[in-house]
């Protein structure tokens, strides 16, 4: 595979449980311990600098690991600093969107921050181009497709976001500034499709392009 540079270089933030499908599938568990209720604010996490790689990367898993969840998602890339924005002011702050494969070691619990699971080196392959909003059009019409070794393993529509982009950015920027060049992922689904070590993965979306990479087994003892 040809190696490309990732299209973004700022901080990358992500959000879970931002699609109605995941909330529905988790169902009653959200009301029980340890969660004790559906989340009120966006549930965020950080993908540190070492996770971001470009299309064509080989991603080596941590020692002892042999599979990853491929969280197909879109990154909102900021063209201006976003702080305490009202929803209607959000579009002007966005430079565009980029296709992202947010990788996680499979984890069933969302209770504690998933640092080893989500922050290992290479855990955020990012597409090569930030596509302006005008070219992307209506996000609700976007379908993300995940392929493993050429087979379609998951499709995901962005029509069922709990918080749409203006609402999500308004809520997040209420307490943390997103800087020019930073990326906020619109959300990954609960228990996304998995890829085994040795496989080739592609995440693509119409009008947004694709990101492709290979998964390599973690060497050494766990």
């Amino acid at each position, binding site marked *: 595979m040809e190696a490309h540079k990732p299209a973004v270089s700022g901080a990358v933030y992500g959000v879970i449980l931002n699609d109605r499908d995941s909330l529905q599938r988790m169902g009653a568990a959200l009301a029980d311990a340890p969660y004790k209720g559906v989340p009120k604010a966006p549930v965020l996490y*950080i993908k540190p600098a070492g996770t971001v790689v470009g299309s064509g990367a080989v991603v080596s898993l941590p020692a002892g690991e042999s599979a990853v969840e491929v969280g197909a998602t879109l990154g909102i890339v900021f063209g201006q600093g976003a702080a305490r924005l009202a929803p209607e002011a959000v579009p002007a702050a966005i430079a565009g969107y980029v296709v992202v494969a947010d990788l996680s070691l499979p984890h069933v619990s*969302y209770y*504690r921050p998933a640092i080893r699971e989500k922050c*290992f*080196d290479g855990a955020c392959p990012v597409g090569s181009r930030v596509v302006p909003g005008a070219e992307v059009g209506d996000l609700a019409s976007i379908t993300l497709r995940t392929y493993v070794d050429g087979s379609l393993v998951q499709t995901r529509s962005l029509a069922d976001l709990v918080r749409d982009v203006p609402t999500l950015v308004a809520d997040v920027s209420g307490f943390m*500034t997103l800087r020019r060049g930073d990326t906020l992922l619109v959300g990954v689904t609960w228990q996304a499709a998995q890829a085994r070590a040795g496989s080739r993965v592609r995440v693509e979306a119409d009008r947004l392009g694709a990101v492709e990479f290979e998964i390599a087994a973690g060497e050494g003892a766990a």
Partner: protein
Amino acid sequence: MKFGRIAWQGAIHEVTPGSDAKVRLADGREIAEGQFTWLPPVEVGTVFALGLNYADHAKELAFKAPETPLVFLKGPNAITGHKAFSRRPSDATYMHYECELAVVIGKTGYRIAREDAMEHVAGYSVANDYAIRDYLENYYRPNLRVKNRDACTPLGPWLVTRDEIANPMKLALSTRVNGKTTQQGTTADMIFDIPTLIAYLSSFMTLNPGDVILTGTPEGLADVKAGDVVETEIEGVGCLINTIVDDQTWSATA
């Protein structure tokens, strides 16, 4: 050595302690406090923070001590310098400080052995890892709304190089609010010590110069209100001062 970073006369300068509480520029000029703005002593890369890493604090929060380090991350927005301001939102009922030893990484490493870990440390600083407990939710807890608020993690004033601290695992920590001591502890009570944390984090991700590990806080938390002056101090490393402000002050246009 101790190094600080300041903004002064249109440029960023690395400084060292001067005479009479002044700071010294590279060319030897000394600048008095109040004439410049303190910046965080390092341009931070990835910032890690530890939850429940002191046995007494875990008990205070009614948790049993974790079996693997409870780590969370912070973005660059959270970090601010010495003598800066942190915002207490009007709807908060419990905002508390956390005095923490900050370990600054100085050398790149992946899968660092515990016995080699200290070679990767550039030095130490003081952090105050504020939390607003009203916003705690049981998803990726402690969640970013509690722990990654703009300018709610002061860091500084100095980066103290590793050679200056004989034993980082035996330093007194204390916090004073408006001059009254409210928190006292020692880094000797950490559950996961510095070499263990470096080995753990580097087992799955590369650590780079400028990455910072905030190593957790002992018991003795207390609510702070707008106007409070909070001093977090670590023996041999420094005293970091921060002032709490309300929404109106935070949002005021100059």
